[in-house]
């Protein structure tokens, strides 16, 4: 039996760089950028990367699902923070599922996610597939305009599928439209017209035809055609060549998100599932050194899926970023004077990180089995002054709890890559509190009593040793009126 898609989720960073800001800064050099200066693209905050976005997309995807049911985790990206450290392993620890899943990183092609999806669909499951991308682009390059940062996830397994696989095809070709090597931070790209004529137009339509044939479907049976790509009108041109209905071509979200690389096919799939009806047939194409074509059919289960933020919710959670300089600085694209306070050694003792992973990565606290007090960190002796029982605590998960601000400040003295550093005491519903960094906040809108949710974020970059350490931070809860 073939597995189907059981759930989907997405994450898009809150900051949306206005393309006009890129143009204003750079058209003196490249006037052609004016043509791309419409809409906005998602950009990571300073404390986000593909790992943190993957955790958020996975949490969104797993809404209402027992995490113990997940047995496999695949993480697709070409912009992992670590080259030799299992990035999927960090995500698994953050989701507190590491002890029972097999995890794998999938990389090196823009179709890494669709290929992984096919593998998961054919291989059974239950597998959580996450794709996340944060590609750096040279200043004043077209990529800087068209890229977007984001992540998407699907849960694949043999349960009540919201979309079932009805056919697929793949082909591999060493067609190098762009590449990036180990020692180069940026992509190198060939001419767009050649990529279109020799790449997309020759490689994709035959794979679509084969997938349709295997599914026993006609091109006209496709309701939604998902074709990532930033070349002008590329999806429509392919649809025409493949005989797909003109109306099936899905919006590629270029206007409000940008191209999220490896994550984009899943991002557009999530966006489609948010609108699909029972029986709709969805064709997803991944392109990169060949192509994957996957045909899915939405089932009646789709309407029963518990509500989630998804693509729509995350697109609505946005803050316009009009400062091109801030974008450069938080993406390390310009050497900014960070001041001597930034020079503090940020070394992470790896033995301590491992020993404390329950707190640091999974954000587990303790629950006293004697008095019931919920507390974080978990400790040998209960913090309740009327209890103080020894060795009485069992692990207690805090990551999905809501908390309220007890006290806060916006600090302009301490070093932060994006000042002011906002933080405060957060008191969790049901017990426990912690002084936490805030993220994705507007300093002037903070209030005592404001509801916050926890997010897995970058805590520090150890620039001396190239290590990134993560921890949990508090961000305005989606229901909070303070969210902008």
């Amino acid at each position, binding site marked *: 039996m073939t597995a189907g898609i059981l759930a989907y989720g997405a994450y898009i960073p809150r900051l949306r760089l206005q393309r006009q800001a890129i143009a204003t800064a750079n058209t003196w050099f490249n006037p052609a950028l004016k043509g791309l200066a419409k809409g906005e693209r998602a950009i990571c905050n300073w404390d986000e990367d593909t790992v943190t976005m993957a955790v958020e997309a996975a949490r969104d995807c797993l809404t209402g699902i027992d995490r113990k049911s997940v047995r496999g985790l695949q993480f697709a990206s070409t912009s992992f923070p670590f080259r030799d450290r299992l990035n999927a392993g960090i995500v698994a620890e953050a989701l507190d599922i590491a002890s029972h899943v097999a995890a794998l990183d999938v990389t090196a092609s823009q179709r890494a996610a669709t290929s992984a999806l096919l593998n998961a669909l054919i291989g059974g499951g239950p597998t959580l597939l996450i794709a996340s991308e944060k590609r750096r682009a040279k200043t004043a390059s077209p990529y800087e305009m068209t890229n977007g940062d984001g992540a998407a996830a699907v849960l694949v397994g043999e349960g009540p599928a919201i979309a079932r696989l009805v056919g697929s095809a793949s082909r591999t070709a060493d067609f190098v439209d762009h590449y990036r090597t180990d020692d180069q931070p940026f992509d190198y790209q060939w001419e767009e017209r050649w990529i279109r004529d020799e790449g997309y137009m020759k490689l994709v339509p035959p794979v679509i035809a084969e997938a349709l044939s295997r599914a026993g479907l006609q091109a006209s049976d496709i309701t939604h055609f998902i074709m990532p790509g930033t070349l002008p009108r590329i999806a429509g041109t392919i649809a025409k060549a493949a005989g797909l209905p003109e109306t099936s071509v899905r919006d590629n979200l270029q206007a409000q998100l940008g191209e999220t690389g490896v994550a984009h096919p899943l991002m557009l799939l999530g966006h489609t599932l948010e609108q699909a009806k029972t029986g709709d047939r969805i064709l997803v194409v991944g392109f990169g050194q060949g192509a994957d074509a996957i045909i899915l059919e939405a089932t009646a289960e789709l309407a029963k899926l518990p509500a989630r933020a998804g693509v729509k919710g995350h697109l609505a959670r946005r803050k316009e970023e009009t400062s091109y300089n801030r974008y450069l600085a938080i993406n390390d694209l310009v050497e900014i004077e960070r*001041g*001597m*306070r930034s*020079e*503090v*050694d*940020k070394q*992470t*003792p790896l033995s*301590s*990180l491992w020993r*404390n992973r329950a*707190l*640091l990565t999974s954000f587990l606290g303790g629950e006293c089995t004697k008095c019931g*007090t919920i*507390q*974080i*960190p978990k*400790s040998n002796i209960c*913090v*309740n*002054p009327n209890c103080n029982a020894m060795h009485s605590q069992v692990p207690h998960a805090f990551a999905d709890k809501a908390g309220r601000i*007890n*006290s*806060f*400040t*916006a*600090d*302009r*003295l*301490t*070093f*932060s890559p994006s000042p*002011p*550093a906002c*933080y*405060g*005491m957060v*008191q969790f519903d049901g*017990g*426990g*509190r*912690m*002084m*936490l*960094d805030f993220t994705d906040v507007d*300093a002037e809108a903070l209030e*005592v*009593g404001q509801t916050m949710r926890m997010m897995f974020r970058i*805590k520090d970059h150890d620039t001396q040793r190239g290590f990134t*350490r993560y*921890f949990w931070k508090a961000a305005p809860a989606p229901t909070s009126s303070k969210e902008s």
Partner: protein
Amino acid sequence: MASGIKDKVAILGMGCSKFGERWDKEADDLMVEAYEEALADAGIETKQINAAWLSTAIEDQHVGKSGVPLAIALRLPYIPVTRVENYCASGTEAFRGAVYAVASGAADIALAMGVEKLKDTGYGGLPQRSRGVLNAMSWANFSAPGAFAQLAAAYRTKHGVAQEDIKRAMAQISVKSHDNGAKNPKAHLRNKINIDTVLGAPTVAEPLGLYDCCGVSDGAACAIVTTPEIAKSLGKHDIVSVKALQLSVSNGQEASHNSWDGSHFVTTRTASKRAYTEAGIADPRKELSLIEVHDCFSITELVTMEDLFISREGEAVKDVLDGFYNADGGVPCQIDGGLKCFGHPIGASGLRMIYEIYLQMLGRAGPRQRQDEPRLGLTHNLGGFPHQNVCSISIIGRYGA
């Protein structure tokens, strides 16, 4: 209950260096500057000192670890020298060590020295320092002003105080300290300021502006203590003695248990209660002649007035604005200029405060001398952060008072 320290130990002599940006001085120069004054005041020689305590909190920036730097600087004759550190309460900790040594009979004469040389970092504000391995990975990225600033949000919420009212009271606290510091030749900042200067200054950590924060400086202060009997035998007539020494240390309850509202210091309340009992004080508002509190930030001083049970809860703003804590008010606070004007060389600050109370008791404070004859004075230090800290209290007064 233990009988306590009251009147068991006398201050034989004290000294205090000039505080400030002492670009041309090493830490040992500052220690010797304070020591020479204390030694002359005590009227003894180095060889009469039986034991010594050194307090430094950011020793990596200057002398390094152990008691050795003090022993070398003063050429102490192979006596016990112990270095102590307990956040910003370090200076009072050194004093406590020396006082307890005398009270126990282990030493006839003991010395407490606090020093800090903070101006070799290359930037303003307190030096960045290590917090410990796990803390560095899990604590929020807070600075000292950012941690203390949060008192304001919690206090405002609890007592329904408008932001502009609390900002005004905080500003008055700094204006008052600068008025006092202007009269003190040993203070770092000796300029008078006004409320508009404070309110118009750049923000450091919301709602604290530049003038809500104490300065950072180099300095040293020193005490020589003995028993009242030995003090008399050495020819002292006006004897100043220790009435109480208390320390209260957070156990993680404020940080992790939801019983604390963030608007006050649990430690100050417990330490001051114990100190009043130890000193036999029933009504601190009436009985204390003056106080030196840990005004690292104006908001700290504001809430401390309530935590010391001098202002009633929720009434500190009113007392401050009424001038109750001014030099000519009911209980002068920071009559020497406070941390605000002295800056805060951490290891030295607690001893600097005791130095001022000592001078005031002896009528030696010059143009800033308290007019009503002082009987009892209190010093207060807070180290760490409101949610996790060390509080020290000393009460010093005229012997027999």
